[in-house]
């Protein structure tokens, strides 16, 4: 990890976070290279996507790379059993796209995951998206890393 002179070091700090770790092997490999040979210091894992296992293996090679959770409630299969979050998944068992979730929200038949994550992170009643969130966190823990950051945008 690079650092500047002490006088300014304490004032300007920069986290360079690479998004979408585990989305695809080509993305994972690029992030690893950008950490080894570039300025990337942190990344966020999409734990529910098929390439996440590849990412987990590659992450072991770079202990200096911070790995956080990329909360993802709109793409790929959920980590929770689909029957526990029926409002968030389609008939194929995968998360519904955001547009479909918003359509359901407008029609009053669903809880939009984005709203639940961005607006009610401390909701007293556990929501369906909170269930999916906990499962993603648990999956991260099972890889052996402490979650060091999170992306809350998807």
């Amino acid at each position, binding site marked *: 990890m690079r650092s500047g002179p002490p006088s300014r070091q304490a004032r300007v*700090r920069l986290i360079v*976070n690479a998004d979408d770790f585990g989305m695809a092997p*080509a993305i994972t490999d690029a*992030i690893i290279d950008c950490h080894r040979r570039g*300025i990337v210091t*942190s990344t966020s894992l999409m734990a529910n996507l098929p390439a996440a296992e590849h990412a987990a293996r590659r992450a072991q090679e770079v202990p200096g790379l911070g790995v956080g959770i990329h909360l993802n409630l709109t793409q790929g299969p959920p980590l929770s059993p689909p029957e526990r979050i029926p409002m968030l998944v389609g008939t194929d068992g995968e998360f519904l796209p955001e547009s479909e979730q918003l359509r359901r929200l407008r029609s009053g038949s669903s809880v939009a995951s984005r709203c639940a994550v961005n607006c009610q992170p401390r909701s007293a009643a556990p929501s369906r998206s909170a269930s999916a969130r906990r499962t993603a966190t648990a999956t991260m823990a099972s890889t052996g890393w402490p979650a*060091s950051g999170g992306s*809350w945008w998807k």
Partner: protein
Amino acid sequence: MRTFGIRCARTQLEWHRPVRRASLQERLRCRAHNLSMLLPVAQQYASRFLLRRAGLRTADRKVTLGMIYPHAHDPKDQLLACLANLPPGVNELVLHPGYEVPGWKSASAFARVRVVETKLAMDADVIAAVETNAISLISYREL
């Protein structure tokens, strides 16, 4: 944009103020569009407030290159300017690295952006700019 040293081209709207000659409906539409541009910023502030209230550590501010240079001729200049003008505190720069592989474009709308940002993240001038501007690279672990 000024905070991060990003050059903002003057648009016709700003410079020639054609809205003054536009109809009321067009002016209202322009105002609505301008206000909508504030929504992502407001969302970022609100999200950071809620996350911190929940006890999570976050950066003081965040910038995503893919959002600020899609029409720029030279994203490297934009990034160098950004690094040269980072304000004190904890800044977070979000990148979307990724190599191009056959069939990948159908899997990701960010395909072109990913390739550009991969090169940027490993660019020698960018790495040198981090040193030159006395920026301390950290991860969330160090917050």
